[in-house]
């Protein structure tokens, strides 16, 4: 469903060139939750943006459902739902108006959009919020609305970028339940997070990213066998330590 092949992205600053994503390749199948993990600045968000087509890749390609974002951007976007921690809402629209607006943006016919809205209202407990203006929502309520917005057009692929950032325990649980729901719906999901402990519980496969490069990839069992560590946190710390040592070596 999602194929990323040798994806490359460079950013030019005033003084240097930064390689944000360095020949990254991975694939995600329907019904699979893939955790793209790494510390801040690893290149996770940049990768997601290139898959969506919001950033132009300097090398390689990303395919969704057989369409490449460089040649058929609208087909790619039609198949994607994007949820980001920095997502905002339209303060003067009601929740219902906003969700139906996004359904319309994705070309969902009104009757189908209303059906989908009814289903999502039940799943996310939005019935009391539907007619409230978005500016009146609390953080947790807003997060539920944003998660519903990502699914309103029933995309086969979901991209979640730091979905639990800023959320308390209850809010995070909502996200976990959401991801489980996506898996049951047989969607291909990529979750980007630096919360490795959470990812360990949520995801089926993992890609460990550092400075734009994929260091390790596989299921938890495979990673444990590869690295000799039990948890993702330990694996990462080990990688960082070895990098520091090699950087310091003459």
């Amino acid at each position, binding site marked *: 469903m999602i194929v990323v*092949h040798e994806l490359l992205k460079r*950013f*030019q*600053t*005033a003084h240097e060139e930064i390689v944000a994503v360095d020949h990254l390749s991975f694939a995600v199948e329907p019904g699979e939750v893939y955790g793209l993990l790494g510390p801040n600045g690893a290149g996770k968000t940049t990768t997601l*943006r290139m898959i*969506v087509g*919001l*950033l*132009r890749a300097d*090398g*390689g*390609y990303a*395919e969704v*459902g*057989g*369409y*490449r974002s*460089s*040649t*058929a*951007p*609208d*087909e790619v*976007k*039609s*198949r*994607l739902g*994007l949820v*980001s921690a*920095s*997502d*905002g*809402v*339209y*303060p*003067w*629209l009601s929740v219902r*108006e906003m969700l139906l*607006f*996004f359904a*319309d*943006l*994705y*070309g969902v016919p009104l009757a189908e959009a209303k059906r989908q809205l009814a289903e999502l209202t039940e799943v996310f407990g939005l019935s009391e919020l539907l007619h409230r203006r978005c500016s009146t929502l609390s953080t947790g309520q807003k997060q539920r609305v944003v998660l519903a*917005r990502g699914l309103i057009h029933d995309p086969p692929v979901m991209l979640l970028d730091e979905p639990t950032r800023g959320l308390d325990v209850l809010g995070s649980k909502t996200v976990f339940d959401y991801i489980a729901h996506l898996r049951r719906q047989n969607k291909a999901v990529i979750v980007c997070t630096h919360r490795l402990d959470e990812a360990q519980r949520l995801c089926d496969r993992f890609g460990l990213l550092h400075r734009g490069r994929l260091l390790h990839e596989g299921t938890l069992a495979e990673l444990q066998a590869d690295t000799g560590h039990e948890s993702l946190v330990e694996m990462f710390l080990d990688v960082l330590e070895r990098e520091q040592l090699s950087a310091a070596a003459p």
Partner: protein
Amino acid sequence: MTLQLDDRESDTPAPKPQPALARPVDAGRMMRLCLKELREILRDRRTIVTLVFMPLLVYPLLSVAFQRFAVTSFGSLTSTQYRVGVLSEADGVRLREFMLDGERILAKTKHASEEATPLNPLAKQEPSVSMFPVKDVRSELVSGYVDVVVRTQESETTYQDTPPNAGVPTSKRLQFQLFYREDGPFGKAAVAYIKERLAAVNQRSLEVRHIHLPTEVLVNPIRGTGAAVSLTALVPLILILMTITGAVYPAIDLTAGERERGTLETLMAAPVPRLRLLLAKYVAVLTVALFTAVANLAAMTGTLTATGLSKTIFGIDGLSMTLVGQVLGLLILFATFFSAVLLAVTSFARSFKEAQAYLVPLMLLSLAPGMMSLIPDLEFNGLLAVTPLVNIVLLARDIFEGNVKATLAVAAVVSSGLYTFSAIALAARIFGTDAILYGSQATWIELLRRPKTKREAATVAGALFCLAALFPLYFLISNALHQLQGATIAARLTISALVTALLFTLFPILIAALQSVRLNSGFQLRRAPSLTFLAAFILGISLWPFAHEIFLLNKALGIGAFDPEVFKSVQSFLDRWKEIPPGTILLSLAIVPAVCEEFFFRGYLMGAFQRSMSPARAIAFSAILFGAFHVITTSALATERFLPSTLMGLVLGWVCYRTGSVFPGMLLHTSHNGLLVMMA
């Protein structure tokens, strides 16, 4: 249309895609997009404040301030005094005699004059007239020493024309020549006052003595050259400023505001072209700007009428409905243009603060053209007719003064429309790019840099941008060519052909290069089957009867005034060109225009339209633009050329679409033009 794969991907196997999901944005979705933007902006309290409360407060305050100013400037609160200049004592005596006579007649029939009120201290008792001896009409009027100058003379004696009394004089008539300054504050009113009394005398003469009218009035307005500012010129300036105020907040909120709210990324991730998103935002900004303009105009009209200031500012007729309609039309034109400019500027901004920082210099810059309407005797010429914003302001001024030239008005409206499209296209290019979305280190130059990937055809936005740049150049150069009266016919034809080639081939090629458009596909320079050329030639030489029928239809419908002066000059032109070799005439009037116009209108423009609309629409739009270009000439609007040119454009567009090439159309166009030229 499939896009060329990026070079970096050429060695990977082509993907096997799933069935297409993306749906094009139809009219219904477009409307819902616009409604959402409008709903959002109109629910915002800040919009309501600008839309409703500011007009309700500003105009009453302005009227109070103006009244204080008027009272101070005009002196007595109890009466208006007209200052009348007379060139001789005899003139003064005659005027006084007839004025008193007329006053007596009117006093018997007139209603009681309106009382002065605190709101309207100048609405009053009858005005009074003071006479002053003057020596020079113009200088005394321009200096403002007097409001009107009167000169009298006896007109030709009238004779009975029926025998047996033929040749016998029956009565003498006194002619009153009234001179006044057009842009003076009281000139028109003073003239009307005097005319009213003289008309009363004439009326009484007719009723009582049944003889010829004893007086005759000739009114001679003159234009002032002094530094005095017409109050009517201030009115559009105020309304323009208020309209800007209404449009600024929505423009910022719908562009930079999206990023601040965190909704921009989600919006850009949706499968809707950026141009459509920007169009919806433009509709919302324009709607609010128009609401603001109407609210301000209504508040201003109501205030001026209620306080009686409308007559003080606009003269004896006050603020008529016709004038209100004209002002509204101009505000619509202005709002249409300025909303697009605002959107283009705010699209660069990454935050509210940044947007405000960009808009302050823009608004200050916009004041300069607004001030130009206050410059006396500034002629509204070809160059100013295509200069953004200045053209609207000066068009407003000329409409108020009642001396608009149709060609310049159309040039101003068309060029403003094209600039509007260009601004929206620019906004679509910038809005939601990664530099704006993510604040990447890209400079503004990179946002406008030439695309790295070659395109098969220009985008609609790019094509309209080219058109917006081409039209003013075309208009200005045509005007300049018209001034070459001293050159020979052959020289003028040659220069005209060169200019056509430059404008319709080299210029689009340059723009296409900047847009990274491939030459062959971008201008539809493809090979066509040989038979199509034969068909094109036959079609080209057989269309002239239809053109002639349309010409006759235009004449029957009264479309296009066939000015006898223009007809005479064309006839004289045709007589002179018999001295020129036929080859030169064919080349300059048939071949070059045909080839170059096809290159641009069908090759570049229609090719761009075909990227994002149906072939029928692409053919229709390019044909309409083709027809419009043939209407605008230097001396007059050749409206009779629109229909035949547009229909020709439809035929040429269809040929280009069917053959996939501009070459058969070039032959068709050339043979049609050539036949007409040789028959002339």
